[in-house]
């Protein structure tokens, strides 16, 4: 086939793709008969009532000397691991504020950290394009550093996020700037599956975050700079199960809803959205009121749900931390305006395993509980 004929085929295929996307959009619009807020308000729901003292900052974890980029809670003990621009991971006892471990990293440009399900190991990754695993029970070397127990190499871009598969100490998923996600066997250091890449229906830009369903650990979602979220099945790496459109900018954060069938996402377009995993429907948009003091719309950096799903916490680039009533889509509290709130961008947040506490991390070098 000549180049000219190929070009004609290319143009025809592009037109078909665009037409199909438009049809899909219209078909979804027909099914969009309501949203969560309209439905629940019609059912008589009113917003959760928060007073100024219902959610207070009871701990400020100080110790990092650089911006905090990521944090994670242990599933059972009240420990938190945080990653910072200072090139360290710190493990904190959230109840006492004490530091139990401080791990100096080989590559200081860390972007993500996570606890293993048993709380005995932590994993992290960043601009070194590798995921490092540390066993907290290991003996420190003579400099007082915990040696790395495994390095997972293979990504061709930075590691933006990593998560352990629930209840599996040996399975870890990473997301990367090379547009792929990878499932690893931590014991052998081998890649088990690669999700995305050039040919399969993967993301077409950097992948920035991922979240694994608690009720069906074979399913995970990833958010990307291509403005989409994609659903993957661990057993089928050849293609994404579904692609969720809606955001108008990079999707910085994704998190599954507690029922494991819905998920929330946060984006550079300043909104959070709730999607239904199985149908692909966008159920709700959580958009902040425009603030005349903002030259640009603050971007969403992080999202998390309370244990019941009634509250959604979202961190923003201007230091706000909104508590949304998920059902009525209203802001019931802004933690960024409370006494002792962070003085910089909220970069990460997460709920404790029992759902009783929220930890936020910020560019002001602190974490707050």
């Amino acid at each position: 086939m000549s180049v000219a004929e190929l070009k004609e085929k290319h143009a025809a295929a592009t037109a078909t793709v665009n037409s199909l996307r438009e049809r899909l959009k219209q078909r979804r619009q027909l099914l969009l008969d309501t949203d969560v807020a309209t439905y629940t308000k019609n059912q008589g729901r009113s917003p959760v009532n928060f007073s100024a003292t219902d959610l207070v900052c009871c701990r400020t974890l100080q110790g990092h000397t650089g911006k905090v980029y990521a944090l994670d809670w242990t599933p059972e003990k009240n420990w938190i691991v945080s990653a910072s621009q200072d090139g360290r991971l710190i493990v904190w006892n959230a109840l006492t504020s004490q530091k139990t471990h401080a791990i100096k990293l080989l590559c200081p440009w860390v972007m993500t950290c996570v606890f293993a399900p048993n709380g005995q190991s932590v994993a992290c990754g960043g601009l070194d394009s590798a995921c490092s695993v540390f066993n907290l029970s290991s003996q420190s070397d003579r400099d007082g550093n915990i040696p790395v127990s495994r390095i997972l190499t293979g990504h061709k871009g930075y590691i933006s996020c990593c998560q352990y598969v629930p209840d599996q100490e040996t399975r870890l998923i990473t997301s990367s700037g090379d547009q792929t996600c990878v499932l690893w066997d931590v014991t052998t250091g081998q890649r088990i599956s690669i999700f995305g890449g050039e040919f399969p229906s993967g993301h077409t830009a950097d992948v920035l975050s991922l979240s694994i369903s608690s009720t069906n650990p074979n399913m995970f979602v990833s958010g990307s700079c291509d403005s989409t979220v994609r659903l993957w099945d661990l057993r089928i790496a050849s293609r994404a199960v579904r692609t969720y459109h809606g955001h108008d900018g990079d999707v910085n954060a994704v998190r599954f809803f507690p029922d494991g069938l819905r998920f929330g996402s946060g984006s550079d377009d300043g909104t959070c959205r709730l999607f239904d995993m199985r149908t692909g429907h966008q159920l709700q948009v959580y958009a902040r009121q425009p603030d005349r003091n903002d030259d640009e719309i603050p971007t969403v950096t992080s999202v998390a749900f309370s244990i019941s799903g009634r509250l959604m916490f979202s961190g923003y680039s201007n230091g706000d931390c909104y508590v949304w009533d998920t059902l009525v889509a209203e802001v019931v509290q802004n933690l960024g305006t409370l006494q002792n709130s962070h003085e910089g961008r909220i970069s990460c947040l997460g709920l404790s395993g029992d759902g009783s506490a929220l930890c936020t991390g910020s560019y002001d070098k602190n974490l707050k509980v």
Partner: protein
Amino acid sequence: MGATDVTPPCPKSPPKYPDLCGRRRLQLEVQILNREIGFLEEELHSLEGVQPVSRCCKEVNEFIGTKPDPIIPVNKKRHGSCRMWRWIRSKICCCVSWICCLEKPTNCSCPQSKNCECCSCECSCDSCSYPNCTCCNSNCCTCLEVSRCPCCRSFCNCKPNCSCMNCKQNCSCINCCSSNCNISCCRCRPSCSTHCGSCFSESCCSCMRCSCTKPQCFSGAFSCFWPFSCCCKSNCGKSLCCRSCCVLRTPSCPECSCGCVWSCPTCGDICRCIKRNNPCCISGCFC
């Protein structure tokens, strides 16, 4: 014998090879598009019979509330005995003070009234005497005395709108207290200088208020070729501003060339290659 004119050697031009790499790239793209068409048709087909959004909303509404949530405040309900006495009182025209005073709600922290009249015995926050609620701490406007002054909560206007009068010059107020509060209540953002370098100072504003110029990259690297003129915007190295936005620029490929050489030589300590956006380079063709 005269010198023979010797024609200097003239190397032949290399043969013109067919533009295979460009064809291959086009073929690959057509394959990807055809695959995408298949996925989209499948998705359209799967929407037949899919439940509307309202059903999903119903499921969400039903799910929430099935689990207790420790982070959500519990509504304080009146004690049953209080309700009964209020009902009785509402039926009796004259207050018999000793009846009302028999049962005081245990969660009432209002001081016991000297004259124990029915209404004050109930001790609802609207009617009880409460201490003056000031905006407490000199640094802030939240009420700290809540545990001893439940009424205060409803009367203290914590963090009213900012008048900005006490903020520094050139600051924009995000969330100030009223003008009689201490200046430290104000969360002011000083205006940034035009250079990105000022964005890293702890005392400076967030990068999004900076009108940044392209960063000075270390020698050997190119300045950011990203469409945005300012590395401080989000697409340049997600969590890291400006400084790490230095990207080693990949060469642009003419459409029908043999492709380009993808090279990302090892970056220095400061900058790393973060994003690739040139399709030629992704395919990694070599001439």
